[in-house]
């Protein structure tokens, strides 16, 4: 976008899901019920929102996702290493759809180990591909016995809708 349509950037703003979610939270537009997810919750840093965003755009989204999760859950755990040093889920860059599934699962072994070590019962991530890899593949391949949610799913499920 920056490269091909610089003039368009002056006409409108581009936001990530974090920007909108935090805007709603900061302005009190949405209310969340923390009792719905009263379990140990781990946050997985997707490469594209973290390390790669930092390289490409000079800005990484490490804390934003954690802020959103803290608004939904009390017990937030870290997977180590995290943030800029985080390990990839194993399904990025098309690997989820490509025919190299053995390599994809092999890649994911580190993520699976991190999840097991964290003691989290719920893993939340703001990337749909990471969610798919962890929820539909790693949980079964490595018998993790955990729940996985996309960050929007977590927020949508925590919403207090009364009074509208």
């Amino acid at each position, binding site marked *: 976008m920056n490269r091909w349509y610089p003039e368009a950037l002056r006409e409108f703003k581009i*936001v990530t899901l974090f920007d909108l979610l935090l805007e709603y939270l900061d302005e009190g537009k949405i209310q969340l019920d923390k009792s719905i997810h009263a379990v140990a919750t781990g946050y997985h840093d997707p490469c594209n929102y973290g390390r790669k965003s930092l390289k490409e755009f000079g800005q990484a989204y490490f804390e934003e996702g954690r802020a959103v999760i803290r608004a939904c859950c009390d017990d937030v755990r870290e997977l180590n290493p995290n943030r800029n040093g985080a*390990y990839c889920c194993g399904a990025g860059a098309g690997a989820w759809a490509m025919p190299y599934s053995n390599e994809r699962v092999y890649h994911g072994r580190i993520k699976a180990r991190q999840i097991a070590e964290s003691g989290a019962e719920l893993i939340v991530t703001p990337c749909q591909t990471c969610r798919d890899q962890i929820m539909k593949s790693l949980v079964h391949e490595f018998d993790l016995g955990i729940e996985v949610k*996309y960050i929007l799913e977590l*927020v*949508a499920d925590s919403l207090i809708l009364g009074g509208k």
Partner: protein
Amino acid sequence: MMYEFKVSEMAEEFGVHRNTIRNWINAGTLPAKEGPGRKYLMEFHEYERLCKKFGREPHLHSVDNVSHRTRETLAEIDVEPLSISGGKSILPEDPSWADECLTCGTCASACPISGVDGLDPRKIVRMTVLGMDKELIESSWPWKCTLCAKCEESCPANIQITSLMRKIRGVRDRARVPEPIHKSVTMCLERGNNLGIPKEDFVVLCEDLGEELAADECPGFKTPVDVHGARVLITVNSKAVFGEPDSLKWWWKIFWAAGESWTLSSEYWEGVNWGLLSGDDEAMQTVVGRIVDNMKRLNCRVLLLPE
């Protein structure tokens, strides 16, 4: 793993004369090399093979847990020695990489799939520097790599390994790009989204989902499609539309709760740009351009990108 032995010990073990062992070594029947201190070295599995031939239990067992059979399989799949053409590579972003890469292998130890197909990021950088473009483009390794940038993050010389990997993907003949990715890119260019979902189907699905949401949790909800002047335009992942349509409602529910003014576009709503993954800048630009057009057409002020 290597096995070290003395000729006299081995002669005793197998009940033959010392000279017989020496003859075997000289004739090559026993593939051993002279080592330090009047000892000989051979591959441990050669020793095991010899024991098998004589029907004896090895007096030592290998200390790792790799079985003999596995090791034989591994030996079989060992990669062919690579030959260097001396040609100049078109792949590096910067010719000084040849000097800058310290060959330290930090990238290889950071990479979760180092060793797959006998390759790792360090070898890929070396192959590039050595002008082995043909082998790199043929290799499936850059496609098994998830472009996670763990290698690049760890590199003390700041070699742009991830962009190199994407470039290797990009110069492969388009017909040989792994099927699912190639199909998605062409489908998106021709039909507007990665899975070729027709406009009518998409609109009907969105309306139905909206009605469901209104009935279940959000009274009065109606899916906004092509609403001019809405504040936020959102894009959608075609995979979610096809496989998990209920997941679309997560955002919708949040928007409803927050009282947001937002809209979907009935056309060119795809939010996943796989030109990024196949290394195809031209396709990527086209798809981005369509979203820019949507923003203008619908006169929205904020564009929400999914990932």
